[in-house]
Structure formats: structure tokens, C-alpha cells
């Protein structure tokens, strides 16, 4: 399972810069990120090269940070690629909390990070349906 790092950010100038600088100085590379925001605060979600170390460093730096298990699915980078996967997930009743996509360096496929209600079940389901998802090491090493 892929570990995502989530960080609480106040809606203030310089907060995102501060997190990314902290990671950068520690030699940690960001693979993917997304921000969910409200009028008062934001939640920064990160896929990084070394999540355990990133977690420790950010915590040390005083951020409210958590580790969450997510699934990185390889989606054909063609029209309807994501839709096909979402449809089968909906049929199977796999609830998605949120997702974000990034186009990695891997040729024809895009990567979509899913946070689902029940990750174990989702992984099993993807396996049965032949939907390819990436192992954690693969994602960190992208």
C-alpha cells in the first residue's frame, strides 16, 4: 500500500512554501501532490520518495502531519480511461474519499491516487479485475 503524507496548512501566505522547503532541504522528492482547501485551512496531500522520513521530518518541524494508505492505480492515458475504472468501482460499491491524478514518467499511463474507505478490499478488487496498481516502492521511485 502506498503511504501518503498529509499536512495541515493554515490559509496563510508561505505555508506551502515552508513545507516543501523543509522536505527539499532533507532531500525528499515530491512525486505527486494535491491540496484540499476550505476558506480557513487546507490539507496538503503528498506522495514522496521516502514517506516515513518525510513524516518524521515534518513532525519534527512542528507540522500536524499524518500518514494515510492510498492506492496508486495505473490508468490508460486515453479518453475514457479513468471513467472505465470509476464505473467498475462504483458498481462494486467501493467508496472513494478523494482522488488526484498525475501523469508520471511512465509512457502511456497516468497515475491516479485513490483514497478509499476500505483499501484492503479495493486492492483485492483491482487484482480480481486486472486493474493494474503500483507497489509502494514503484511509486516512491517514480
Amino acid at each position, binding site marked *: 500500500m502506498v503511504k*501518503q503524507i*498529509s499536512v495541515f496548512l*493554515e490559509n496563510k501566505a508561505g505555508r506551502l512554501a515552508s513545507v516543501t522547503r523543509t522536505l527539499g532541504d532533507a532531500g525528499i522528492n515530491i512525486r505527486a501532490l494535491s491540496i*484540499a482547501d476550505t476558506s*480557513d485551512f487546507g*490539507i496538503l496531500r503528498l506522495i514522496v520518495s521516502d514517506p516515513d522520513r518525510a513524516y518524521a521530518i515534518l513532525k519534527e518541524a512542528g*507540522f*500536524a502531519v*499524518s500518514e494515510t494508505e492510498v492506492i496508486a492505480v495505473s490508468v490508460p492515458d486515453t479518453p475514457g480511461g479513468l471513467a472505465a475504472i470509476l464505473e467498475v468501482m462504483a458498481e462494486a460499491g467501493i467508496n472513494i474519499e478523494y482522488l488526484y491524478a498525475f501523469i508520471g514518467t511512465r509512457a502511456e499511463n497516468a497515475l491516479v491516487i485513490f*483514497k478509499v474507505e476500505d483499501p484492503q478490499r479495493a486492492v483485492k478488487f483491482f487484482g480480481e479485475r486486472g486493474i493494474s496498481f503500483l507497489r509502494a516502492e514503484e511509486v516512491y521511485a517514480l
Partner: protein
Amino acid sequence: MYWNQEMECMPRPQLADLELRRLKETVFRAYTFVPAYREKMDAAGIKPYDIQKLEDLAHLPFTTKQDLRDAYPFGLFAVPMSEVVRIHSSSGTTGKPTVVGYTQKDLFTWSEMMARALTCAGATRHSIVQNAYGYGLFTGGLGVHYGAERIGASVIPSSGGNTKRQVMLMQDFGSTILTCTPSYALYMYEVMQEMGVRPSDLRLKAGIFGAEPWTENMRREIESKLGIAAYDIYGLSEIIGPGVAMECELRNGLHVFEDHFLPEIINPETGEVLPPGEHGELVITTLTKEALPMLRYRTRDLTSLDVSPCPCGRTHVRMKKVLGRSDDMIIIRGVNVFPSMVESVLLNVAGVEPHYLLVVDRVGSLDELEVRVEVSEKVFSDEVRKLEELNRQIRKELEGALGVAVKVRLVEPKSIERSEGKARRVIDNRKM
């Protein structure tokens, strides 16, 4: 103009005799009828007959808000419930409120105090008193009400809220005296502006404002906007409610109605009694209260006493306008808010003791309270929904416990300033 010239202008030596006699009676009754007082006095090694002169008061143990909470609800009452004819309760506290009771005679004393206070502001039987203090468990509404009736004034029990109607009543009924919190008076002015009502077209002459701290600047603002004389009144439910002290027409300090309430000023750190003129915490001993006698009650309000004669003729000592507290209580729209209350709510909701900060602002003329809460790892979630739910839950719990509207803002860990390791709990931007 006095309500009770004999008592209000009593020569000081005579007043001191009266105070001593009443003090002895009060201490005796408290010791005899209230186990909690007896235990405290026994522990301090003092008996009622040790009180032989007024200075002996300093030997008595203090009574605090915590004592009232510990005795919840009626533990400090010195009379059987069959003698209690009224119960009031203080606004917002942690869990349990503080409860106060009155006998028939206590209510009579209270209306006498309020009659004196209203007379200080020029009220007579010809006055029309619009009482916009809240009616209910809060002592403000009923306290003023009975005092005004005692005088024979016409009372409009408009209570708080519905400001347009307040203005309409003021216009149509010709209210001459307004009683409410000072911030509400300013808010009324704004509503008058919106409604196109000119204060000069009203018959309003004076306002009696209390239940929250207000400055001389605010007094000038109210006076110039509403075109009235603004008087400060002081009181607290633990002692009796409004009518413990009141400004006379000179408005240079509030006369403490000493024949019923004996004031002292102490150093809040050491408990030592300070001489007249020195600034410290106001401590009050009730001299005639039957249901709930208070021995050396620590009000936590900071002020000083002025024993010099007042040109108005009243001989009762004057206390300065209260502008500070010896604890960090804040008063928002007449409601007492302690940071400790916020703390226990947060502890309940978040399961940890988070760092927090209360920020009070006056927006327009109404006070607003924002509570900033640091997001700890324990409560943090990667889902917006969960954090918003947390925010909502904290707000709901706080509003339930405090009795005022609250805005909750989640902030980053360590973002609330700490000085010497201890977090500052309150920022009051109301320019007191």
C-alpha cells in the same frame, strides 16, 4: 436626588457602626447555618465572636466562585428552601452554573438597591424605563425591573433582542431611561440609523449601562450618539445582581451601597488587604443577605476605592470603573467567559488539551468571539469533511457551554504564541 437619603448620606461613623453590627450578624448566620462556611472558618481558627471591629473582617477566609460551584446548587444557602422565593443562575460556566437564591427580604433589599441606582440616573415615578437587559436566569432584567417598579416608574420589560421593535417602543412609548449593556446601546443607535430614527426625536434622557466592561471613550460615544447621559452600574449575581454600586450624577466613581455590601480591595496575588486608593481586586461581604450570605467574595474585578467625600452628598465609598479582571475572564455581550471553560470543552471534544486562543473583537458594536484551536496530530485528518466536522463539533459544544456564539478557527500547531512556555489565552481587541 436620593432614593433613601438617610442611608445613602449617613455620616461615616454611624455607617461604620451599622456595618459592624450587620457584619457580626452575617458572620454568625453564615457560621451557624452553612456547613461550608463553618468548616472554612474552623480550619482558619476563627469564630464568629472574633469579629469585634470592621478590621477583623480581614481574618475571615475568602469565598470564591469555585466555592459556589462546589456547593452546587444550594449548598451555600443559609435558609431552608421554603424561605427562598427566587433562584437565579449565572451565565456560562464549566459544566455547572453558579446558583443564587433570594428570600422575600432579599428581593426587597435588591429592589431598594436598584431604586437607589435608578434615582442616581434621575429616574422618578414619571420616568418610562425601557429595560432591555435580558429577563430570565440572568439577574439583569428582573433586577432593574423591580427597582423601577419600586420607584413607581413605568417599566417596559422589552428584554434583549428584536432591536427594531425596541426602537419602535422607544419612539411610541416615549421611553426616558434605557437600561441595557453598553454595546447593545450602541447597536441600537445603528439600527436607529437604518430605520431613519433620529435620537433627538426621542425622549430618552439617560441610560444605565452595565454587565460588561466599558471605557470612558465608549461613554462619550454613547452620549454623543444617543444624546443622553450614560451611567455605569456595577453588580454581580453572587452578591445580589445589578445594584451593588452605581454612579451618581457626578459620574466620578460608583458608590458602593455600603449599608448592604462591605467592599475591600486586596492584592490578588497575596490576599493582603490594600489601603484606600490602591488598585487591586474587589472583595465584597454582604451585610444583609439572608438566603446567600457572602463572606469576602472575590469578585476578580480590578478597581480601587475612593473614601473622599463626594459632592453629591452620598457618604458611601466610591469604586473606580472596573476595566480589568484578576483572572482572565472576558465578558461578551453580558456573558462571562473563562478560558478554562474553553479548555474543558476542548478536552472533551478532542480528547487532548489543545492549545487555544480566544480572540474578542467588536464588529460594529457587537462583540464577537473567535476561538483558535491548534490542530494536533491526534485530531488531524487528511479528509476535509472530518476537520469540518471537528470544527462544527467544537463550535457546538463551546456555544452550549459558554452561551455565546463562537467562531472556531483551526490553526497550525505551535502557531499560537507562547511566552515563557505558557500560552496567552485571550486577545481582546475591543480597545478597553
